[in-house]
């Protein structure tokens, strides 16, 4: 099949709301959004703690977390695979090759981004606000709500970056999800599989959706930083 014909078939799949196509897009979004939500729930408090506390080894921890932002997805996948495989420590839960396993793997990919960005954002804000907040008796944990709210636009950009990283990766979900049809098949794993099988329309259609998603994420990130600039002055 030539590229033009494949493109036409791909658009056909998209506008006809092909059930298989929608199922794949839906699962991808569900897995990635769950991972970002989980990463936010864990990462925002952890990042805040890292920003406000002083202890031995803090710098090393910051460097480690910054480094983990570049963790290769396949390595994260391998790690979760070992954890969840039958002989692994969490093997009895029977989570391997389920969407839950994919959420766990992607959470691990997004978490360092959320922690690192929260840490640096709140660090800067705390430097600037410290005396005023101390004057109001808002120190330690009592300062965190103020700092999170005033860092809201930068933090939103960080969550979007995390969403972008998770939705585009293929290695981690492929290893722990297993690419099982109608169950753990996401946009990226389907593209990899269908391209190697020669079924270009489905691969191309999903590729277009992924690109649109990436564009939308970037537009949202840009909007967040523009609105943020209005308040930050």
């Amino acid at each position, binding site marked *: 099949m030539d590229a033009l014909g494949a493109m036409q078939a791909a658009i056909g799949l998209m506008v006809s709301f092909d059930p298989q196509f929608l199922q794949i897009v839906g699962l991808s979004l569900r897995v990635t959004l769950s991972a970002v939500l989980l990463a936010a729930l864990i990462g925002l408090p952890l990042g805040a703690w890292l920003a406000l506390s002083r202890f031995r080894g803090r710098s090393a921890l910051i460097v480690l977390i910054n480094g983990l932002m570049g963790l290769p997805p396949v390595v994260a996948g391998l790690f979760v695979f070992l954890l969840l495989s039958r002989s692994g420590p969490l093997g009895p839960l029977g989570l391997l090759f389920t969407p839950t396993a994919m959420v766990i793997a992607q959470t691990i990919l997004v978490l360092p981004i959320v922690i690192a960005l929260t840490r640096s954002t709140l660090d800067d804000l705390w430097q600037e606000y410290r005396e005023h907040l101390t004057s109001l008796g808002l120190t330690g944990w009592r300062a965190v709500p103020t700092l999170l709210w005033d860092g809201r636009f930068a933090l939103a950009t960080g969550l979007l970056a995390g969403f972008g990283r998770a939705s585009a990766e293929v290695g981690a979900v492929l290893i722990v999800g297993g690419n099982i049809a109608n169950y753990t098949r996401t946009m990226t794993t389907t593209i990899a599989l269908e391209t190697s099988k020669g079924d270009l329309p489905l691969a191309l259609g999903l590729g277009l959706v992924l690109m649109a998603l990436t564009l939308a994420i970037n537009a949202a990130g840009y909007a967040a930083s523009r609105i943020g600039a209005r308040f930050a*002055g």
Partner: protein
Amino acid sequence: MHGMPSILPLDVSGLVLEREGRRLLDGVSFTLPRGGVTALIGPNGAGKSLTLRLCHGLIPPDGGRVSWAIGDGRIAGRPRHAMVFQRPVMLRRSVRANLLHALEALSFDRPAGRAAAALARFGLSDLAERPARLLSGGEQQRLAIARAWALEPDVMFLDEPSAHLDPGATRQIEQVIAALAAEGMTILMTSHDLGQVRRLADRVLFLHAGRLREDSPAERFFQAPDSPEARAFVAGDLLW
């Protein structure tokens, strides 16, 4: 304001602050009674801002003490002294939200009403919904003073309240300070602008190299300073 319990007078005795082996404040003692504008002046690095921070409790002293007439400078659990910083700290929120944040941090009742009153009192009502960080320098300083005033302090510490304002905004801030003083607010402020000190202050504390060299009524300080350092400081200003 009069007749109500007050944390004043403030009694500062023998304040010492050391950093990296250097003595930044060396036995600073003075008493701040109720009312009036007291200016803390001296060359750069004399320890003016540090003294304010120690009085406000932001830094613990290495020696000496800061004691209030009523325990801890608090009444009903709330600090009754407020500070305005040289660079006003503006939260990334609207003008009104900046006031609400401070009021809610100290658990004031009716925060919305108090915020509205502070906005009106300092002529900020029209700017209420604007992002605070987009205000001009003078407006930001006015908001910072309004935010401190809303917390109903007995004494306000102002650190260089017009250090980077243009002459027009400086005049406005001076009017605000004079009005507060006329209402009975006690003010302890630092300033490097001797003209401003002449216009506003009733009393001058002259700091030099971490020591309090002079504590005089403002008029006498400018006519006949006691210490040679103060004479040189005032003369330098006149010659410049």
